[in-house]
């Protein structure tokens, strides 16, 4: 159970996130939508304490009863990667380029567990196999030897390695083509069923929301303007901004994924044009 209460993120005197409240129940998938600069990524970073030093945070964030925002840095770090995992938009930046995927997964296991070497290796290879990667080969590969979709799947494997309770996916599909994006989301959905995982999904693209999310929250200029069950928000939006966001989605065409990918890029530009 994730509880965000009155979260404010400020840069100097400017408030970028303005006292928002959010809750995610166990096994619930929440889509947090909004245009870029709406403060949704800052909200995601606040949960793990990953905000840049210049930004000031106030309010409380608690996870399963313990208040993350008042934990010591080292205790808080122990929850990261174990209880709470991240996936980011830029799959190129998911892994350090000059260290093999295997070593980086192993580093994660060593940071959080006392397991012995062979056991750790088996766990890593299993986790990679679980996202349909050739585990043995990927284990010894460097990031640049994998494709974008493979890297993002490896990033999911790393995020799910220690069976966390909360997965924060910050625009995990934006840099991928539509077909690959769909696959990545399916892996997350599979893990959600298997682990009763809570998912916080940051996105500016409402196309996939209907299929995967349980609940939707819409953010604009640092405030949550609307939240509720996905059907309610998507079918009868209460806020004008949500309607505009929805109107920016192109109608699904039967022309196949490639075409869709191109369309979505155009629609993004149109969306920006309409909103800014």
């Amino acid at each position, binding site marked *: 159970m994730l509880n965000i209460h009155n979260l404010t993120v400020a840069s100097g005197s400017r408030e970028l996130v303005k006292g928002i409240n959010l809750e995610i129940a166990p096994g619930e998938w929440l889509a947090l939508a909004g245009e870029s600069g709406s403060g949704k990524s800052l909200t995601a970073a606040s949960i*793990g304490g*990953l905000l840049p030093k210049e930004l000031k945070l106030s309010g409380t964030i608690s996870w399963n009863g313990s208040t993350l925002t008042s934990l010591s840095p080292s205790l808080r*770090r*122990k*929850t*990261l*990667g*174990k209880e709470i*995992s*991240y996936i*980011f938009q*830029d799959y*190129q*930046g*998911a*892994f*350090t*380029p*000059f*260290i093999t995927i295997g070593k*980086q997964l192993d*580093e*994660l296991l060593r*940071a*959080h567990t006392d397991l012995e070497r062979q056991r750790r290796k088996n766990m890593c290879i299993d986790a990679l196999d679980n996202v349909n990667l050739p585990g043995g080969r990927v284990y010894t590969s*460097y990031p*640049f*030897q994998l494709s974008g979709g493979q890297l993002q799947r490896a*990033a999911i494997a*790393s995020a799910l390695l220690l069976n966390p309770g909360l997965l924060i996916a910050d625009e995990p599909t934006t840099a991928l083509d539509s077909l690959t994006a769909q696959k990545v989301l399916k892996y997350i959905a599979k893990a959600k069923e298997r682990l009763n995982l809570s998912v916080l999904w940051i996105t500016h693209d409402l196309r996939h929301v209907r299929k995967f999310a349980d609940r939707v929250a819409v953010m604009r200029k640092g405030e949550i303007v609307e939240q509720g069950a996905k059907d309610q928000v998507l079918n009868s939006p209460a806020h004008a901004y949500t309607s505009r966001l929805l109107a920016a989605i192109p109608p699904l065409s039967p022309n196949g994924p490639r075409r869709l990918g191109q369309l979505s890029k155009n629609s993004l530009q149109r969306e920006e044009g309409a909103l800014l």
Partner: protein
Amino acid sequence: MLRSIGKRLLELLLFFLLLSFVSFCLLKIVPGDPVRSILRVDDVAVTSEQIEAMRTQLGLDKPLFVQYGLWLKQLVQFNLGDSYLTSRPVFSEFTEKLPYTLLLTAGSLVVMLLISIPLGILSALYRNRWIDQFSRIFSLIGSSVPSFWLGLVLIQFFAVRLQLLPPMGEGSWRHLILPSLTLGLAMSAIYVRLVRSSLIESAGQDFVTSAKARGIHPARVFLFHTFRHSLIPLITIFSESIGSLLGGTVVVEVLFAYPGLGKWIVDAIAARDYPIIQGYTLFMSVFIVSINILVEMSYRWINPEIALKGKIES
């Protein structure tokens, strides 16, 4: 892989041939006569017969191409000729002086690393705080001071006033301190800022955030992810500045009367000792090329992408 190495070696060979020929010609064109400077050592009236006899003895009466051919013929037998002045083989003089210069270079590098890495890291971590301002001023002044002047000031302070260290010469590790400090300080002035800016650039990379988000200990993230990434540009710049490092050793060796390669060549130039000058130029090019190959190999460790793809990213 093997073919590219072979091609590279062939290119190197051609380069050395060309270089040695050009330097050979240059030595013959420039004013000054080695025969006179050798005979002047004896400090007696020199007759023209003596000069001619000496010229024949050194083979200087033969045509330029014949002289160069003879030099090459000796070279493939690892013989670089004998010094005009001491009549000893250039090669054995070189191997005698080389350890001194290597020691001095190593000493300066140690000083450079000991200063620039901690100071660079601290100024990157505490950006625009006093330690960063300090390193900025240190770097600005350090890169503006002539190294020999710094050396003189150090001698004056540590050797003459405090009498802690020997002012010049060689003999013990204590003789190495002041020369190493002189060169090392001058180098760290440049590297402090480079370490800082490279670290700041690396710390902003997405993979650093990803590693933090996996709950890895910050010290570990810094050492194995951020710092290693920041080494890539540093090593490139270092390999490009080997030349000025070696040039620095010449000045510092003369200053501290330190019997390394630098003092050797300056003395040889003054005496027009051609075999030594010719040999030295060759050694230095070989040395620099070997350093560059070493640097390329260390790239492969730091950035496996190069090792696997066989290309260097700019």
